[in-house]
């Protein structure tokens, strides 16, 4: 997957552990966004025609292009529902999260 993933973040204990400059290196993600969701998108691969509109309009870029049909990165999806709303084939359903 060509995306940054969550890294184990440990609070710096010594001054040498801090990054040079105000930030860690590019793409350093300390936690996920999965907890933001109340609904999650589920793609019905039978209905999907791989038009990739969901991929274009996802604000978080969590739709993953694959060889066949797209997938969702549930670690960073915020459940906004834009993909399901814009899908021309209604192939994406927003399902309530069970926790």
């Amino acid at each position, binding site marked *: 997957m*060509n995306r940054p993933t969550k890294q184990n*973040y440990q609070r710096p204990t010594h001054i040498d552990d801090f990054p040079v400059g*105000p930030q860690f290196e590019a793409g350093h993600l300390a936690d*996920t966004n999965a907890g933001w969701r109340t609904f999650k998108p589920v793609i019905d691969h039978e209905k999907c025609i791989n038009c990739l509109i969901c991929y*274009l*309009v996802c604000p978080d870029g969590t739709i*993953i292009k694959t060889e066949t049909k797209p997938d969702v990165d549930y670690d960073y999806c915020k459940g*906004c529902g834009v993909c399901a709303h814009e899908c021309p084939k209604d192939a994406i359903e927003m399902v309530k999260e069970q926790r």
Partner: protein
Amino acid sequence: MKDDNTPTAPKRITAKNMTEKEFFYGHKACAGCGGSVAVRLALKVTGEKTFAAFPAGCMAAVGFIYPQMAFRNNAIITTFPGVASMASGISVGAKALGLKGYKTVAFAGDGGTADIGLQALSGMIDRGDDVMYICYDNEAYMNTGIQKSGLTPYGTHTTTTPAGKNFPGSKTQKKNLFEIIAAHDIAYAATASIGYPQDYINKVNKAKQVKGPSFIHVFASCPTGWGSPTHTSIELAKEVVDTGLFFLAEYENGSFKLNKNPKAFKDIPTYLQKQGRFKHLKEEDYKLIEEHRDMKWERMRRNWKHS
């Protein structure tokens, strides 16, 4: 204007052949954020070799949360009024270091462009620095809590223009930002909307080829500030173009061109009623908005090239 500034037709980028790499990922923007669609798509077109500059605004607030760094390319937070001058400096610095194939992109909101950053932007275009400037327009200062900006349309409820018995919200119309930028005789300027993502990608791709300043004014919805459901972000950005309240146009080689010239506009109240910020509007306000739209379109159709 010199001929070598004219953008050439670049290879078309679509969802199918676009890079799978995400350069703006894991950020903390609100669910359904339109501005992050604009930033994400633009960075995917310009690629890894991009220096991005962000003024104090939403994208700076959601991308750089220590220890998190949601950008995967070089990115920096600038002063609020100085994003264009900072980008100028980056671009000239990269040139002095002999870096090849890099593009400097400045992203600012509507307030950071049309109000606070206008002076620096004007200077940047005047100097002819090699910077692509993208203004994502969500029609108010969203990061600081929804205050009216120069690009807030008539009748918008914001915290500084509260709608009530005596006022319909914002009393001014949107500034003609696109024409102001074009008046600098810039090599390439365009307006776009995240509701038409392919059009936006094409314009970013075109602006990328320009050696010199280029400007894109992209309409980006904001569910938090507009009081609209998160899933309607793209729908609203599409509808605003279909109703004629925003337009898709380009300016190059000294002439304006309307990219989309709808025969009939969609109904304005239907679009406005989907958003909490326009809920209070009355019949006479709709009429005023419609009159202003027709006046603007009459002028554009008369003076600009269109199909």
